[in-house]
């Protein structure tokens, strides 16, 4: 009997929690299929008249500039992640495989930086970006995403240790230089670490709001998150269009999550504990 009660409580709590997690999202989804009149006159739980009404999606895509937003996000993602991987792996390679003067200091410099929350320093970072002439360009986002990411370096350093040094040495005997060792031995062996970095970094960049909000004002250069934020102005009276925009931004992440669940969980548990 007690077993049954415990079990009931367990499942009841899971169901309640799931409803709380899903309900706000579900209402945005149903809202996105309503017409403007429907949205204003029907209750939030009323089903849309036509589940195939995609006109809000069309509006969000065309007039809301979401297509451009996705394209911009893609550019930034590819550039910043490629940069992060090369830089992180290079730093990890140097730190793990060499002893050199200033190695400890270098390491300490990276470690200390993890303690500085980026959100606090933007007041001053803004001036640096401006002085470099990067304001209102995607370059600003790319270098900021690359340059302030210490977590990936940490992940690479961790992983680097598991790559046997004998591999480097074998390559060295074959006459490979350091650059070739890095490119042909280290990078391929870092694949699992690279996958982790791509996942957590990719999601983080895709979702980042503050940095693009601060550094990009030209609507043509905006990534997806600030494109969506801009919906609040012109579509303020059209919540059905805003809803469609929200759903559109969630879909890529949902697909990624469903496809790569295990990696996503692993990535975040290893990434978050730093």
């Amino acid at each position: 009997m007690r077993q049954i009660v415990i079990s009931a409580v367990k499942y009841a709590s899971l169901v309640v929690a799931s409803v709380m997690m899903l309900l706000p999202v579900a209402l945005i989804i149903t809202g996105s299929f309503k017409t403007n009149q429907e949205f204003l006159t029907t209750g939030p739980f009323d089903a849309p008249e036509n589940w195939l009404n995609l006109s809000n999606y069309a509006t969000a895509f065309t007039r809301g500039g979401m297509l451009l937003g996705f394209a911009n996000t893609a550019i930034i993602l590819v550039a910043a992640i490629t940069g992060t991987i090369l830089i992180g792996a290079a730093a990890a390679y140097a730190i793990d495989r060499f002893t050199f003067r200033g190695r400890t200091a270098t390491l300490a410099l990276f470690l200390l930086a993890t303690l500085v929350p980026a959100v606090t320093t933007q007041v001053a970072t803004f001036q640096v970006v401006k002085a470099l002439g990067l304001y209102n360009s995607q370059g600003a986002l790319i270098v900021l995403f690359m340059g302030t990411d210490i977590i990936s370096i940490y992940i690479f350093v961790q992983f680097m240790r598991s790559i046997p040094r004998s591999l480097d040495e074998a390559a060295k005997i074959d006459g490979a230089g350091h650059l070739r060792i890095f490119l042909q031995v280290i990078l391929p062996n870092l694949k699992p670490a690279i996958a982790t970095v791509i996942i957590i970094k990719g999601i983080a960049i895709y979702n980042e709001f503050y940095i693009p909000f601060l550094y990009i004002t030209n609507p043509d250069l905006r990534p997806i998150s600030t494109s969506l934020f801009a919906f609040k102005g012109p579509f303020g009276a059209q919540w059905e269009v805003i809803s469609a925009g929200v759903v559109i931004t969630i879909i890529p992440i949902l697909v990624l999550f469903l496809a790569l669940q295990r990696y996503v969980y692993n990535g975040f548990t290893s990434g978050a504990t730093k």
Partner: protein
Amino acid sequence: MVPYLFVLAPIALLVTFTYVPVANMFAYSVTDWDGLDRVKNFVGLANYVDVFTEPDNLRVFVVSLYYLGASFVQMALALYFATVLSFRVRLKNLWKGILFFPYLINGVAIGLIFLNFIRPGGGLDSALLAVGLESVIRQWTGDPEVINYTLAAVSVWRYMGLNFVMFLGAIASVPGEIYEAAELDGANRWHQFRHLILPSIKPIVGLSFILAISGSLSVFEVPYIMTNGGNGSETFVIRTIKMAFENNKVGLASAMAVVLLAIVLVVTCVQRRLVPEEKVDLT
């Protein structure tokens, strides 16, 4: 020579975008710079005095207490669900996915989802009405007594999944045989929780508790998107940004940022004292 070439780019980026700004921030914080003028006048510690005496500046510390409180609720929930799901449960992956997924959603999308959900006559009000709780209905952001609870609750909704998955991972690191052995010894679920689960996740819980403090001061996205800091919901970061970019008080904003940084550093030091970690050695 070689290692220097490999660390050159990372160090250059690190210095340019982390250390130079931090140093500049200290420099700005003792001036009256408005962000535009060519001249910056030295004003000593006046900005720091402002941070701690101006009532509007002090209020943001109060607001962060709501989020601090919320992060305890968040951890309790995460712990509960992590424990439940570490035992045998049907549809385990489904529950896990549902609880975690909100963490992956864009902050802007979350802000908009909840603006829609809590608007008067929106989903939340309708749901409460449907289950006969209409007396609970409030102006979720309109009532100054309620607004910060609402926003903090959204934050719990958003971040609970991350805590949960981390706790779950820590619990899973206890080998299954130990549970089996415990069960054979007649230990019930509570005993298993108390003597096996809790110790295994203690370090991570400790870490989360302490991170909650700096986290609650760094709240930005959701309140900014949902209320723009209106009606008494201004957080530390929102105020810093408004001061820097709208009110032309870069000096004051820098002082606020320095204070925030100092708090984060102190908290981290304390954490290091309280929660010694095994997996920290990089060297």
